[in-house]
């Protein structure tokens, strides 16, 4: 599903050049449940941004579902993100002025899906994360765990090939974190490829495979 060959990335300032990824080789197969571990500065966020087509890499090759992801226009990148990837963020990033179902339906809006169908699908996905009854609530009326579940529903609604989660439990207490991880597990069991970036051992322990990053290199995978 995901293949990285010799991915390099460095951030250049006027005086210094900081190499963040030093030639990453990585293969993640379809249906895997993977976590990427590393301390801050290990390059895991940069790696996730490259995987999420939110950032570009300097050299190497990134194949997503057999497609080479390189030198895309902003529009192409947006379309690939929309079609192939589902994002879950640490701080949920729900739109506060939209109801739960509207948040979930937002990716479909960019696919130009009809409003009625969007709503139907959104409620269907809210049901999958156990929040059907909360469809008409605003994010500030929900707990952190509920908000993250809404965000997961939003990531799933486009039926992407890969779910990318950046510290999805970082803002949650332990019990809620486990609940959220259980949802990821269910998603995985339905055949989805799930990649979770975390620095918490107990969270990565819930995944099938742990990729450890240190100073821009993979030290174990």
């Amino acid at each position: 599903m995901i293949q990285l060959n010799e991915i390099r990335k460095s951030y250049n300032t006027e005086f210094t050049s900081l190499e963040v990824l030093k030639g990453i080789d990585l293969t993640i197969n379809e249906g895997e449940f993977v976590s990427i571990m590393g301390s801050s500065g290990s390059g895991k966020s940069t790696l996730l941004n490259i995987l999420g087509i939110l950032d570009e890499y300097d050299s190497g090759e990134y194949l997503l579902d057999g497609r080479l992801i390189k030198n895309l226009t902003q529009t192409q990148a947006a379309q690939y993100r929309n079609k192939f990837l589902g994002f879950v963020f640490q701080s949920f990033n729900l739109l506060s002025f939209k109801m739960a179902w509207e948040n979930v339906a937002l990716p479909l809006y960019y696919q130009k899906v009809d409003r009625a169908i969007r709503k139907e699908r959104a409620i269907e996905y809210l049901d999958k994360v156990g929040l059907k009854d909360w469809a008409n609530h605003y994010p500030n009326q929900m707990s952190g765990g509920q908000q993250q579940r809404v965000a997961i529903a939003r990531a799933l609604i486009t039926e992407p090939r890969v779910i990318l989660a950046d510290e999805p439990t970082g803002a949650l207490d332990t019990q809620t974190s486990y609940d959220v991880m259980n949802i990821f597990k269910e998603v995985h069991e339905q055949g989805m490829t799930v990649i979770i970036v975390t620095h918490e051992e107990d969270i990565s322990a819930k995944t099938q495979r742990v990729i450890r990053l240190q100073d821009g290199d993979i030290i174990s995978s």
Partner: protein
Amino acid sequence: MKIDYDKWEEIFESLGRHKLRTFLTALAVWWGIFMLVLLVGLSNGLRNSFERDFSKGAKNALFMWGDRTSMPYNGLKPGREVDFDMRDYETLINDTEGVQIVSGRFNFWGDYSVTRNNKSFSYNVQAVHPSIKKIQFTKLDKGRFINNNDIDNTRKSIVVGHQVIADLFEEDEEPIGEFIKIKGTEYMIVGVSEKGERDWENRNIFLPISTAQRIHAGRDRVHSFALTVDATTIEEVEAIEATIRSKMATNHQFDPEDTQAIGMWNKLERYQEFQMIFSGMKGFTWFVGIGSIIAGMIGVSNIMLIVVKDRTREIGVRKALGATPRNIISMIVTEAVFLTSIAGYLGLLMGFGLIYTLSYIQKTQNIDLDFFYNPEVDFGAVMIALVVLIISGALSGLIPAIQAVKINPVVAMKS
């Protein structure tokens, strides 16, 4: 085209979340357009009022009246009054190059009233030559104007304005052939002049100058002359004025250089001055108006920049979820265009409303203002203003929109 309800919903939501900000921005645009329409309308009103007065009578008309000498001449002291008489009339008609037609004018000064059947009113009575008709473009409703027979035979014939008829006659009475009394003398109405828009036009009474001179002056006194000159440029007019002055100087023994001795007013020169003033005013009006539109536009642009800053995180999320640059630009630009168009349209509507209300009141209430007549804003100007509005709305949204497209979703969502 399918209406994108969601986009509009978001626009209303975005505007509604900051009502005061939206209102103030809209106010700036509204004010700009409102002022532009108002300024254009009012300056057109002023212009139309002047145009109306200038369009009455010959464009090459010249008026002159006797005044006081200001230079000594031939041993005569300054300060002498110059009184015109029929000799001057003859000089002007027969012996002055450039003069086409001439009418003398003899005014009835002082307090007196015009009476008929115990009704009495006061009017503007002037004794003239028949040629005044060709200088002032007097048109008649009924009867005839003063003619040469009236002059030669010092007949007591008069031509009156509409107000005179309205005041002194019953509605179904035929005024032609009837008599009215002016300063103790009975005159017969031979004509009624056409109704004019200005009140004073309808209060005119014309009688033969010879009759007035015989009855009221006892000699051939002329108070002023109205004439037309053979000129199309200011230089030509000024040359003819100089000729006239030197002829009058001979008749009345004053220095031909003495510009105070007789007063002259020529329409051609005034008309050109007036046109220059108005083209200047028009330019100024548009300058101010466009200036206020640009100010409003910058206001909208600023607000949209703040909106983009405010929504950085939201835009980042949208980009991560698959919003293309086109989606983002369309969202911001549509919002800006919507805001400017609505505010501008209201400004247009209210500006027009005010101008037409003024115009309507003036017409229905018969309010005759010297400096204001038929204010109007032409349709073409409005269409231009509308197009300018929409384009300026788009422009004012474009810079913030480009700013929004540059937002890096990763950075935006971390903030």
